[in-house]
C-alpha cells in the first residue's frame, strides 16, 4: 500500500538513493538513443526518445533534493536538444512546425519540457513574437499541478526564458513585445510557482509534515528566483515597480496565506529590489505586513527592511531628504502598530523587538529627532499597558535592548532624560532587570563622564533609578540580597552623585535638594551609602559659595545661602544619624562643623559639634571607636577657630573631660596629651601654655598609673611607650616656645625614662628602645644645629 501510494512517499535515504540511481540510469539509456537520433537527424526518433527520457521526471518517489539531481541531469540533455532544434530551423524546418510537433506527445510533463525547449529556440529565431511564445508556455504549464514537478518545470521555463524576455534594450523588444509583457510573464510564472510551492505542504502524510516543510524550504529559491529576474529587468523602473510589480507580488504573498512563503518572499522582496524602490513604495510594502499570517515572523522582516534603509542612508546621506519626504518614520511606526494589532497572538517579545528595530532605525536615520525616539518608546509603553511587569525573559531582554539603544547611541544620559517615555518603559521591567538597567545607565554616565547639571534632569534621572535608590515591590527580601552586590550598587549611586554638577550655586542647591528628596526614600540601608557623597557635594558647594563671597543671609527665599546649605547638611547628617550610623555621622558632623567654622558661622559650627558630642555620648560605645572619635573631635576642634572663648571653653572642656573618661589608661593618657593641642593653637588661636602643661602633667600621671596597674596585675610594668610619647609632646611644645615647658622639665622626664628603662621591672621592647633612641638622637641633632633652637636645647643633657 505504501509503496503504491502515489504521492510523496519519502522513505529512507537508501531507498531514495536507489530510486535516483535507477532513474538516472534510465535517463542515460534514453539519452543514448536520443543522441543517436540527433546524429541521424531523425526528428521523430529524437522526439520519441527525448520524451521517454523526460518521462523519468514524472516520478513521485524522489525527495525534492533527489528530484533536483535528476532534473539537472535531464537539463543537460535538453541543452543538446535545443541545439538540435536550432539546427533543424537552419535546415529549413519551420519552428512553428516543431512547436506543434512536440505537442503530439501524450504525456504532459515531457510534452511541456519539450515545448519550453522548442519555445526557447522559437523565440530566438524571432519567427514569432517572444511575448506570444512566452505567454503560451506559461499558460500551458498550468497543466502540471503536481507541486514538485510543476515547480521544476516552471523553473526550467524561467531558466530558458531569462535571456529572452522582451526587456528594454533586449533584441526581443519591439515586435517581440514590451517590457510589460516580460513583467507579466515573470509575474505569472512567479504566482503559479508560489501556489505550487505553498501546496507542497499538503502533499503526503500528516506525520511527515515537519520533514516536508524542511524539504519545502529547500525549494524556496526556485520561487524566489523569479523576483530576482524581475529585479534584473532594465525596464522595471520605479514607476513600473510601484504600479505593477510590487502590488502583484504582494497580492500573491498575502493571498497564499502560508507562513513559510510569506516570510521568505517578504524577505526576498526586501533583498532583491533596490533601496530607493523600497523607500518610494514603503507604504505599499508595509501595508502588506499586517495582512500576513499571524504566525509569520514579521518582526524580522520589518527589521530587515529598516536595517536596509538605514544602511542606505548611511551609504548616501543625501537621500535623507527623501526619507523625510516620504515620511519613512511615521510609516514605519504606523505599520508597527498595525502589525501588532493584526497579530494578537504575537508574543510580547515580538512586539517589543519590533519597537527595538524601529528605534534602531530612528537612531540611525534620524538621530537628531528625539521626538521620534520618544514616540517609539511611547508606542511600546502603550503596548505594555496593563501588562504590569514583564515576566518573559526574552521580552525583557528586548526591553533592555530598547532602553540601551539610545544610551549607546548618544552616550549621554541627558539626552535620554529628555525622553518622557523612557521611565515608563522601565517601569515594566521586573525588579532584577530594572536594576541591571539602572546600573547600565549609571555606568554609561560614569564612563562617559556625563555631567548632569539641571535639577529637572536630576529629578528625571533618579526617577529612572528608582529601583536602585528606593525599596519597591518585587524586591527580594533584604536577607537574600547579596551584601556585596548591594554595596556595589549603592556605591555606583554614590559615584553618580559626583556627576551632578552645576556652576550656579542656586541650581546646584536645587540639584542637591532633589537628590536628597529621592535618597531619603531609600531607607536606612541605602542612606549610609548615598548620603555621604551628597554631603560632600554640598560641602563643595559651601566652598564655592564661600569663594564667591555671598552674603550670609540669603536675599529672598529663592536664592541659596550658606545658612540654607548648612541647614540642608544638618538635616542630612541627622537623617544619617538616625540610621543609625553613629561613627559615620559623627565624622560628617565634624566635617560640617569645620566647614561652618571656615565660613565663620560660629553658632552653626557649635551646633554641629554639639551633635557630634551627643552622638559620642549616646551612640559610640566601643572603646576603640571612642578613641578614634575623640581623636577626630579633638583634631577638628583644634582646627576650628571660629569659636568665642565661652563656646570654645565648653567644647574643649567637654573634649578633655571625655578624654579622661576613656576606659583604658593608655587611651586616656594619649587622649589627654592630645587635648593639650586644644590649648595651643597658633596663628591667632588660643595659646595657653599653662593648660598645655597641665594636660601633659596629667598625661604623665595617667602613664604612671598605667604602669603601676600593670605591675600590680602582671608583675611587670608595661613598656615605657607612653612616657616617650609624652616626652615627644614636651619637646614639641618646648620648641614652640611654651614658656611653661622648660628644659629642666624635659631633662627630668628624660632621666626618669632612662632610669625606668634600665630597671628590671620594666618590660623591654625593642620598638620602645628604638623610639627612645631616635628621640634622643633628635635632641642631639637639634643641639648641634647651631641656631636658636640649639641654644634652647643646650641645657638638656643627653648621655
Amino acid at each position, binding site marked *: 500500500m505504501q509503496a503504491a*501510494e*502515489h*504521492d510523496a512517499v519519502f522513505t529512507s535515504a537508501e531507498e531514495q538513493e536507489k530510486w535516483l540511481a535507477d532513474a538516472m540510469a534510465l535517463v542515460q539509456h534514453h539519452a543514448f538513443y536520443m543522441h543517436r537520433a540527433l546524429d541521424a537527424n531523425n526528428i521523430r526518433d529524437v522526439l520519441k526518445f527525448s520524451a521517454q527520457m523526460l518521462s523519468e521526471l*514524472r516520478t513521485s518517489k524522489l525527495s525534492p533534493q533527489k528530484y533536483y539531481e535528476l532534473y539537472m541531469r535531464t537539463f543537460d540533455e535538453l541543452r543538446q536538444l535545443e541545439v538540435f532544434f536550432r539546427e533543424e530551423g537552419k535546415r529549413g524546418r519551420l519552428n512553428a512546425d516543431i512547436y*506543434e510537433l512536440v*505537442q*503530439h506527445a*501524450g*504525456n*504532459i*510533463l515531457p*510534452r511541456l519540457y519539450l515545448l519550453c525547449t522548442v519555445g526557447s529556440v522559437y523565440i530566438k529565431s524571432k519567427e514569432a513574437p517572444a511575448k506570444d511564445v512566452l505567454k503560451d508556455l506559461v*499558460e*500551458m504549464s*498550468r*497543466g*502540471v*499541478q*503536481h*507541486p514538485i*514537478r*510543476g515547480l521544476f518545470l516552471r523553473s526550467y521555463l524561467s531558466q530558458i526564458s531569462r535571456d529572452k524576455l522582451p526587456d528594454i534594450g533586449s533584441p526581443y523588444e519591439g515586435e517581440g513585445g514590451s517590457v510589460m509583457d516580460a513583467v507579466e510573464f515573470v509575474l505569472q510564472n512567479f504566482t503559479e510557482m508560489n*501556489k505550487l510551492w505553498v*501546496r507542497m505542504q499538503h502533499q503526503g502524510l500528516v506525520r511527515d509534515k515537519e520533514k516536508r516543510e524542511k524539504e519545502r524550504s529547500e525549494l524556496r529559491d526556485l520561487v524566489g528566483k523569479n523576483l530576482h529576474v524581475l529585479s534584473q529587468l532594465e525596464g522595471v523602473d520605479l514607476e513600473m515597480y510601484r504600479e505593477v510589480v510590487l502590488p502583484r507580488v504582494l497580492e500573491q504573498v498575502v493571498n497564499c496565506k502560508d507562513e513559510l512563503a510569506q516570510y521568505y518572499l517578504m524577505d526576498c522582496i526586501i533583498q532583491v529590489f533596490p533601496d530607493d524602490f523600497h523607500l518610494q513604495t514603503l507604504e505599499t510594502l508595509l501595508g502588506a505586513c499586517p495582512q500576513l499570517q499571524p504566525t509569520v515572523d514579521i518582526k524580522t522582516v520589518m527589521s530587515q527592511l529598516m536595517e536596509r534603509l538605514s544602511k542606505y542612508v548611511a551609504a548616501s546621506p543625501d537621500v535623507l531628504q527623501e526619507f523625510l519626504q516620504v515620511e519613512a518614520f511615521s510609516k514605519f511606526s504606523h505599520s508597527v502598530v498595525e502589525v501588532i494589532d493584526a497579530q494578537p497572538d504575537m508574543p510580547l517579545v515580538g512586539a517589543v523587538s519590533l519597537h527595538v528595530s524601529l528605534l534602531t532605525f530612528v537612531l540611525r536615520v534620524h538621530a537628531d529627532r528625539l521626538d521620534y525616539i520618544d514616540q517609539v518608546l511611547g508606542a511600546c509603553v502603550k503596548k505594555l499597558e496593563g501588562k504590569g511587569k514583564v515576566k518573559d525573559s526574552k521580552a525583557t531582554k528586548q526591553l533592555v535592548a530598547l532602553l540601551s539603544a539610545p544610551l549607546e547611541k548618544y552616550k549621554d544620559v541627558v539626552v535620554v532624560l529628555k525622553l518622557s517615555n523612557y521611565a515608563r518603559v522601565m517601569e515594566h521591567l521586573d525588579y532584577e532587570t530594572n536594576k541591571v538597567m539602572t546600573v547600565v545607565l549609571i555606568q554609561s554616565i560614569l564612563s562617559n563622564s556625563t555631567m548632569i547639571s539641571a535639577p529637572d534632569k536630576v529629578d528625571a534621572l533618579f526617577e529612572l533609578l528608582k529601583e536602585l535608590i528606593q525599596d519597591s515591590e518585587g524586591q527580594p527580601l533584604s536577607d537574600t540580597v547579596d551584601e556585596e552586590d548591594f554595596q556595589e550598587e549603592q556605591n555606583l549611586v554614590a559615584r553618580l552623585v559626583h556627576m551632578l554638577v552645576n556652576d550656579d550655586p542656586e541650581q546646584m542647591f536645587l540639584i542637591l535638594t532633589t537628590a536628597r528628596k529621592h535618597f531619603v526614600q531609600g531607607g536606612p540601608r541605602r542612606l549610609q551609602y548615598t548620603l555621604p557623597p551628597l554631603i560632600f557635594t554640598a560641602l563643595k558647594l559651601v566652598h564655592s559659595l564661600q569663594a564667591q563671597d555671598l552674603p550670609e543671609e540669603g536675599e529672598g527665599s529663592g536664592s541659596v545661602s550658606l545658612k540654607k546649605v548648612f541647614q540642608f547638611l544638618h538635616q542630612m547628617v541627622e537623617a544619617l544619624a538616625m540610621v543609625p550610623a553613629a561613627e559615620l555621622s559623627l565624622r560628617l558632623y565634624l566635617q560640617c562643623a569645620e566647614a561652618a567654622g571656615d565660613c565663620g558661622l560660629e553658632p552653626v559650627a557649635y551646633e554641629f559639634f554639639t551633635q557630634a558630642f551627643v552622638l559620642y555620648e549616646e551612640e559610640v560605645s566601643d572603646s576603640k571607636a571612642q578613641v578614634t572619635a575623640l581623636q577626630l573631635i579633638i583634631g577638628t576642634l583644634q582646627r576650628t577657630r571660629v569659636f568665642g572663648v565661652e563656646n570654645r571653653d565648653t567644647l574643649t572642656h567637654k573634649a578633655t573631660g571625655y578624654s579622661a573618661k576613656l576606659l583604658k589608661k593608655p587611651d586616656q593618657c594619649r587622649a589627654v596629651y592630645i587635648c593639650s593641642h586644644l590649648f595651643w593653637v597658633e596663628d591667632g588661636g588660643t595659646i595657653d601654655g599653662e593648660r598645655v602643661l597641665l594636660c601633659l602633667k596629667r598625661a604623665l600621671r595617667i602613664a604612671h598609673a598605667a604602669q603601676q596597674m600593670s605591675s600590680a596585675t602582671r608583675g611587670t610594668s608595661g613598656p615605657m611607650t607612653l612616657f616617650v610619647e609624652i616626652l615627644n609632646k614636651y619637646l614639641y611644645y618646648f620648641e614652640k616656645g611654651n614658656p611653661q615647658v622648660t628644659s629642666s622639665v624635659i631633662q627630668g622626664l628624660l632621666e626618669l625614662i632612662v632610669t625606668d628603662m634600665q630597671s628590671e621591672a620594666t618590660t623591654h621592647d625593642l620598638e620602645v628602645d628604638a623610639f627612645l633612641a631616635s628621640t634622643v638622637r633628635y635632641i642631639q641633632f637639634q643641639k648641634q644645629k647651631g641656631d636658636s633652637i640649639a641654644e634652647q636645647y643646650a641645657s638638656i643633657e643627653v648621655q
Partner: protein
Amino acid sequence: MCCPEVPPPEMLTLRSRGSARKGELRRGTHADDDDGFGMSGRPKPSNFPSRTTTRGREKNFLVGAFGPPCKVGIEFSDAETRKQASVKKENGQVVMVPLFLGQDSVAGEVRIEPLPGKKVEHLGVKIELLGQIELYFDRGSFYDFTSLVRELDVPGEILECKTYPFEFSTVEMQYESYNGVNVRLRYVLKVTISRSYATNIVEYRDFWVHNYSPQPEINNSIKMEVGIEDCLHIEFEYSKSKYHLKDVIVGKIYFLLVRIKIKHMELEVRRRESTGSGPNTYNESETLAKYEIMDGAPVRGESIPIRLFLSPYDLTPTYRNINNKFSVKYYLNLVLVDEEDRRYFKQQEITMYRLE
C-alpha cells in the same frame, strides 16, 4: 447513461457515494444520452462489453479457378496526377489507392490482354462502379448502394490486346470510403467478361472516396458544468463542437470544487461505430487518442488549458446513419483519475468533418 459505460458491479459503493446521476449538474443543452458524468472503477481504458467480431473471412473475389485466359487491367486516366489515400488493410498492410471526391468523374481504360495463344470468347464486357457496404457480422454480405454500368463490348472474341476507355462522369458518391471494425464501405470498379459456359472473368479495382464538407455555419462551443455532489465540480469548455480532421481542440477545465485527490486528467478521443439497426445494433468503441492534460492535483480555482492537435490521429468525419446501415460518431472523453485509480469521466460528442 449509455450502456457501455455502466460501472462494474464492484464499484457500487462508489456509485452511491458519488451519486453520479446524469445531468444532475448539467447546465449545457446537450441532451445526448452520453452526458452523464460517470465513473468507472478500473484504470483500464475500455470497460465496454467486449463483443469480439469474427474476422476470419476469405477473399471471395478470386480470379477464375482454372486460370483466366487473359489479363485484365483497369487504369485510371489521371493515375499520374491523382492523389492517393493510404489505406490500412486488414492484415495491417498499408496500401495506396487513388482518391476521388464525391462529384469526380471516374474515367480510365480497361485493358484486356489475352495470354499468348489464347483467345477470349465472351458474351459481352461491362464495367461497373459499385458502392458497397459490407457488414462483417452479417456473413460478409454486401449491399450495393450505388451501381453504375457501362457496356464496353458486344459479344465476340478478343484475340489480341484490346483497350476500352470508360468514363463515369460526375458520379454521385455521397458516402466516404470507410474501413471500420464491423463495417466497410468501399467503392470499386468491377470489370466483367461474361462467358457462356466458362465462369465469368471478373476484375476489381478499389478506389477511395472522400467528401469535403464546408465550414459549418454554426459551431458552438461545448461548455458545461458537471460534478459529483460535494466531491468534485468542474466546468469544461471546448471552443467548438465541430472539428475538421486536422483541427486543434482548444479548451479549458475549470475546477470549482475539489475534494478528491486527483492524480491526473486526460482527454480521450473515442470513436463509436454502430452497425445494424433496431435490436441488432452493434456498437464498437475504440479510443483513438489518449492525451494527458493535467498532472497532479489541482485546487479550487485552477484552470487547466487544453490543446490537442488532431492531425496525428487516424480520424474520419462523423458518419450518421449511412444508408441505414451504420454510423460512426466521435466523442471527447474527459477522464479524471484519482489516487485510488478511480476514474471520473464525462463524454461529449463532437462532430468531425473533412475540410477541403
